[in-house]
């Protein structure tokens, strides 16, 4: 299916707005006093969930594009990944602001002492270079190959994010959701391994 540039821009605009809905929902809930008994917990969990949703959707672009043969999906990937970063930033800001009131020293103590926060923090820091190099100019400056290599970091970052969620829930023995994420991310990453192997096998056979 081939789409015109105009159609793709339209789709991008619609998804751009849809992806903001969770954020505006939180803002509206905050003003309407609908964040429940523990607003900080609500915001923390909600922004954490949406981070993982968007990173999974961004990781799904390539497999879906190949399976269903819809090449233009690639044009949405950068935006989806950046939304993952946007919600991760809100998640981190909630932690820094409402949990620690910008007491960076206290925050560091938490980050270093508690493994689930450590891995979450690493994942967030890992997203920073990807977000910073997401512009066309940066792609040019780095060169396509190096840029691609750098952005493969996401294959490590997302599992760290899932581990963060898993450890957060593990003491409460409530692992259904983290395990669902783990299965999904595992499938999306294994699909890449599989394609890589079969491509190498094909190359060797033809050589």
């Amino acid at each position, binding site marked *: 299916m081939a789409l015109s540039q105009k159609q793709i821009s339209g789709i991008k605009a619609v998804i751009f707005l849809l992806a903001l809905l969770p954020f505006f929902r939180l803002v509206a809930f905050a003003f309407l006093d609908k964040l429940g*008994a*523990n607003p900080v917990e609500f*915001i923390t969990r909600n922004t954490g969930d949406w981070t993982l949703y968007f990173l999974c959707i961004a990781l799904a672009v390539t497999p879906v594009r190949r399976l269903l043969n819809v090449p233009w999906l690639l044009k949405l990937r950068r935006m989806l990944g950046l939304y993952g970063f946007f919600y991760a930033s809100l998640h981190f800001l909630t932690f820094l602001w409402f949990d620690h009131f910008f007491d960076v020293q206290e925050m560091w103590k938490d980050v270093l002492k508690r493994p689930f926060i450590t891995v979450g923090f690493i994942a967030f820091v890992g997203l920073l270079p990807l977000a910073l190099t997401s512009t066309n100019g940066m792609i040019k400056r780095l060169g396509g190959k190096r840029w691609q290599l750098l952005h493969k970091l996401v294959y490590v970052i997302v599992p760290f994010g899932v581990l963060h969620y898993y450890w957060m829930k593990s003491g409460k023995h409530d692992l259904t959701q983290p395990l669902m994420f783990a299965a999904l991310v595992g499938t999306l990453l294994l699909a890449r391994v599989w394609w890589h192997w079969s491509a190498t096998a094909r190359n060797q056979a033809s050589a």
Partner: protein
Amino acid sequence: QKMAATLNPAYALIEKKTAYKDATTYNNFYEFGTDKSEPAQTAGSLKTRPWTVTIEGEVKKPITLDIDSLIKLAPLEERIYRLRCVEGWSMVIPWIGYSLSNLIKKVEPTANARYIEFITLDDKKQMPGLRSPVLEWPYVEGLRLDEANHPLALLTFGMYGEVLPNQNGAPVRIALPWKYGFKSAKSIVKIRFVKDQPRTAWNSAAPREYGFYSNVNPEVDHPRWSQATERRIGEDGLFARKRKTLMFNGYSEVASLYSGMDLKKFF
């Protein structure tokens, strides 16, 4: 449904009570789901009448009591207690009940009775959360006998001038204000007096994270978060700093129960 009780002035905290709505919609009661909003939505299926509580084990006079006779065993008092959850939030709740020691006296524990065990209802038909294996069911909690005999330990039947809502542990639960909330067993069907320290639900699920004693202690962190501060539900909103957690949740009168014990080891 109203429940009459006289306020006990010894336990009339002057702190602001948590809103009824928050106290009845933000609950940890895994028998009705792991999400804190779930118990309020699903606990309607719990039938609190007829209901009996069996008291057995190392006692001279074991007995099975109908819930309404249990309520009449001693005069009902209203007591306003702080409630500190192990997750780092707190509430202030006006409970209705009487000291557990009244019931203990009635059944006459033997010399072998050193611990007391509370067992929660375990019925999949009434409790949808039991289908998921998050904990070993039934939920078991326990105390040392001298802890259970402390006047603060409240056998609880109501809150906010009414009978307990199902999601808060109807028709009978314990309230132990100096311990983290999960120690206060809900919807109790059996109380056993035993010789050895009971295997309690959270302690056997994650012994590193949830000790048998689980006294509120700002100096002993949970492995995944600090216990030094807490957020008071409904008061310490988004922009308020968290408040300091007090040793034994501010109930220093229990300290003598633990004299000579290393509370970092027996957390």
